[in-house]
């Protein structure tokens, strides 16, 4: 290893930030293509209806309109793919619409405004059908069935784990609770934006799109459009957040490509915020019935969950797989020998759900962490004590869970203790007693969460769990890194440069990291599931290894020694035992491109592309503690203190780790207290703007006291686990536990999220 600069582990500011905060980053909507046209969509106003007629003549005749298309026009496009086969999802619905926002027609025109105005001229006549809104009713086929092939709207059933009947039969205590994980809007700062160009002379489709996964999108787009993959280039330039919502191939992307090819003009589309709330996939949406069996001493012996998971009307890429990620981690950090999970995945007349920061794991963490508190209450034990009794012990790793996973590493008690100390747990409990005596509602909530990251072994992901990295030394000795992951806020331009600087002994500022363009990055699988560093970074480590191998050969030539005798230390290559004479990596790079005396023996160039297939998932964990006070007069929740101690293994860039935790907690608090996608009984979205959908802002969020523990993983050469989703997963149960603790004197055991003031006020005053 060539560690000299010791960039890894340093608190480095993100090199992405200057361009982002000065407005000089280039997003898809900043791109202008000569002669570009604009799309606008006619979307269903009904949650479920047959289309009787569509009148497009007036729109077609409008000035500036270049085309109007409906479903029948695009029957040469294949239905959109999903990880699990599902209902046929056409790019434009034909004959029948199944959610408010379903696409019925598209207008393409010379300006954004013209396209929108013309879309209003299209008259669609509908025959209304009964609407499936409630998942449990839907599971009974009530009031109707969306697709005849899915009996009672049950798409897929996941049934996993082992037999829990004996554990419950012999249980000293059983506790049951129903949990609702409300639907959430994703709301990245940049909504989805698309620009499609068809170069007729080159037979080449270029799609610029705000997406998390350009390489996979390219494969899928080719399959859907019957276009050979080598004729497609997908570019995700600056992407302003994704949170899982931008993993899938979307209808609008395919439609833009289809029209660009049909008309021969570039086509652009940008999603409005209100369009985002009906047209982009949403998160969560599960109803769970949870049961635990335990001894009187508080040892959990069994866990049984029946889930009804809201798929929405169609499957996008991972829709039916999300409950699977819940299933895998239902036992959390606890050694529960008997676990069972059954999810009925229900098709409803709503926008499809898919991954949203945490993707299935927040639901699992929420359930087990809430159940631990309910058990502690039942047994009149401290919630930390119940947890401590059930932690998987340090000597049990690698730990084989009842759900079939092998946990890589963990040290849960040490982590929790650090968080308790950071909070000042004992003092806070004392303060709580004093406050309660005065009639105040103060609560402390703990969550000792875990999650699975570094998605993942390819067996989990239809063969595409690996990733790639390319390192290219330029003839001047500078370095261009190209990665197969596709950061959109994670900061890999910084962290990957830190890694390469240390590994290859090259100055940090001489390294640039490229991503997001299928034309100049090795094929990879994008950024989601906290995989950027744990998988993409591991591939980068492999590429470094290959570069060093080649560099040693060149060093051997320069130093007139055998390559096997060359050692790479302190950023210098030298002959073993003769450190006096040495050559740097950058000198070697110059030689690699200009050493005409060498090329007879050693191939020119210094470049490596490597792929990495993770052998296992990685298992970050942590402890989040919220101390809150509920205002008895208004029901509002105020934070007194928020502490998080996360363990994501080795940290490449501690400052970026903190940034990820900050953002994650914000979103987790959003779910706990504010955010909710609301449909009425007709399936109409009635939280369709950010005036109605309560997205927390800085004024709603507390200061975070952060710390960490470091338990490296053996799964990848970095020992890093991933932290992108941790904050979201750890925070929600901590906050809800704290609020329920605060109002425990009311006798109310559980209130469904979001814990809005009126719900808490009612609990306190009734």
């Amino acid at each position, binding site marked *: 290893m060539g560690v000299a600069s010791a960039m890894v582990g340093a608190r480095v500011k993100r090199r992405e930030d200057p361009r982002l905060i000065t407005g000089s980053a280039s997003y898809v909507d900043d791109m202008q293509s000569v002669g570009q046209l604009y799309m606008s969509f*006619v*979307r*269903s*106003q*009904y*949650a479920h209806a047959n289309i009787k007629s569509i009148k497009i003549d007036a729109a077609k005749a409008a000035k500036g309109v270049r085309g109007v298309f409906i479903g029948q026009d695009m029957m040469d496009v294949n239905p959109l793919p999903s990880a699990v086969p599902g209902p046929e999802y056409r790019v434009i619905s034909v004959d029948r619409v199944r959610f*408010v926002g379903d696409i019925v027609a598209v207008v393409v025109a010379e300006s954004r405004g013209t396209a929108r105005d013309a*879309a*209003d*001229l*299209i*008259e669609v006549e509908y025959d209304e059908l009964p609407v499936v809104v409630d998942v449990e009713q839907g599971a009974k086929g009530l009031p109707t069935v969306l697709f005849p092939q899915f009996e009672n709207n049950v798409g897929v059933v996941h049934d996993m784990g082992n037999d829990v009947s004996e554990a419950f039969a012999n249980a000293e205590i059983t506790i049951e609770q129903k949990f609702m994980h409300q639907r959430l809007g994703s709301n990245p700062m940049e909504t989805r934006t698309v620009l499609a160009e068809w170069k007729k002379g080159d037979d080449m489709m270029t799609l610029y799109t705000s997406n998390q996964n350009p390489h996979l999108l390219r494969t899928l787009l080719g399959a859907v459009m019957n276009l050979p993959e080598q004729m497609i280039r997908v570019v995700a330039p600056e992407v302003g957040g994704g949170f899982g919502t931008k993993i899938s191939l979307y209808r609008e992307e395919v439609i833009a490509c289809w029209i660009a090819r049909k008309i021969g003009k570039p086509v652009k589309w940008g999603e409005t915020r*209100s369009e985002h*709330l*009906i047209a982009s996939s949403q998160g969560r949406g599960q109803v769970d019935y949870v049961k635990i069996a335990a001894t009187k001493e508080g040892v959990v012996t069994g866990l049984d969950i029946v889930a009804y998971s809201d798929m929405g009307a169609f499957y996008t890429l991972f829709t039916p797989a999300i409950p699977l990620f819940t299933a895998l981690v239902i036992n959390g950090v606890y050694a529960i020998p008997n676990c069972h999970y059954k999810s009925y995945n229900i098709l409803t007349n709503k926008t499809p759900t898919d991954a949203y920061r945490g993707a299935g794991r927040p639901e699992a963490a929420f359930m087990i962490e809430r159940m631990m508190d309910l058990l502690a209450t039942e047994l009149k034990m401290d919630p930390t004590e119940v947890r401590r009794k059930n932690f998987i012990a340090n000597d049990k790793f690698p730990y084989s869970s009842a759900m079939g996973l092998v946990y890589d590493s963990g040290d849960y008690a040490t982590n929790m203790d650090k968080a308790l100390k950071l909070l000042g747990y004992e003092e806070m409990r004392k303060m709580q007693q004093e406050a309660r005596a005065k009639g105040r509602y103060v609560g402390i909530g703990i969550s000792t969460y875990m999650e699975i990251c570094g998605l993942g072994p390819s067996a989990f992901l239809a063969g595409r769990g690996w990733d790639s990295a390319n390192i290219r030394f330029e003839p001047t000795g500078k370095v261009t890194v190209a990665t197969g992951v596709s950061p959109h806020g994670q900061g890999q331009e910084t962290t990957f440069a830190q890694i390469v600087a240390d590994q290859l002994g090259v100055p940090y500022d001489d390294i640039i990291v490229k991503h997001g363009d299928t034309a100049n990055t090795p094929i990879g699988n994008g950024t989601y599931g906290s995989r950027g560093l744990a998988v993409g970074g591991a591939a980068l480590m492999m590429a470094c290894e290959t570069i060093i191998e080649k560099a040693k050969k060149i060093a051997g030539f320069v130093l007139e020694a055998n390559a096997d005798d060359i050692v790479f230390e302190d950023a210098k290559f030298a002959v073993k035992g003769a450190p006096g004479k040495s050559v740097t990596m950058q000198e070697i790079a110059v030689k690699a491109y200009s050493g005409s005396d060498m090329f007879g023996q050693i191939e020119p160039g210094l470049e490596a592309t490597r792929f990495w297939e993770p052998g296992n998932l990685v298992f970050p964990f942590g402890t989040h503690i919220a101390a809150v006070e509920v205002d008895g007069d208004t029901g509002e929740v105020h934070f007194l203190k928020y502490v998080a101690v996360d363990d994501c293994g080795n940290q490449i860039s501690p400052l970026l780790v903190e940034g990820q935790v900050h953002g994650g907690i914000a979103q987790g608090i959003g779910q706990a207290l504010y955010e909710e996608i609301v449909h*009425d009984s*007709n399936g*109409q*979205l*009635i*939280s*369709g*703007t950010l*005036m*109605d959908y309560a997205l927390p802002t800085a004024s709603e969020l507390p200061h975070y006291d952060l710390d960490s523990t470091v338990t490296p993983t053996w799964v990848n050469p970095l020992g890093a686990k991933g932290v992108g989703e941790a904050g979201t997963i750890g925070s929600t149960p901590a906050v809800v536990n704290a609020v329920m603790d605060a109002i425990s004197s009311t006798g109310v055991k559980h209130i469904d999220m979001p814990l809005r003031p009126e719900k808490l006020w009612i609990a306190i005053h009734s």
Partner: protein
Amino acid sequence: MEVNGDYKFKAPQNDVWRILMDKQALQNALPGCERFEQVGENEYEVTLKIGVASIKGVYNGKIQMADFEEPSHYILKVEGAGGQGFLQGEGIFDLSQEGEGDKVRTVVKYKGSANVGGTLAGIGARMLQPVAKMMAGNFFKSMEKQLDKGEGDKSEAVSDEKVKETEAQPS
């Protein structure tokens, strides 16, 4: 969504009934009415230009009056659809007279329910109820004005501009 309320006319019940049943008066009282065609007995096709908060749109639809019990009860059904959403509503109107001579008043109680969809629901739901109440108020005010014109000094608009309504909850 439900909107309930009442409106007090300074006129005898028979006069109020007559103006409410008058086709021309109805056309004049409808908000943003751009087209009004009779297509059947007590059935009209209309085009209304209505804005709810920022959602301004043109709605084509039908108005139907039914269930007449002269001079005290009828139902008005409205349905309309446009680029920004759709609306289906029904209003039940009950008239009763109180007072005598100069103090004669006619109270029209209305009970309305509506379903809305599309952008109108997604973006406008929060605004719909107050807007619906305002529209109902304007409707009656317009009717009363027309009654004044037609009937001269026989009646006079209630000076209190406020439209009295009972509390209503979003459906």
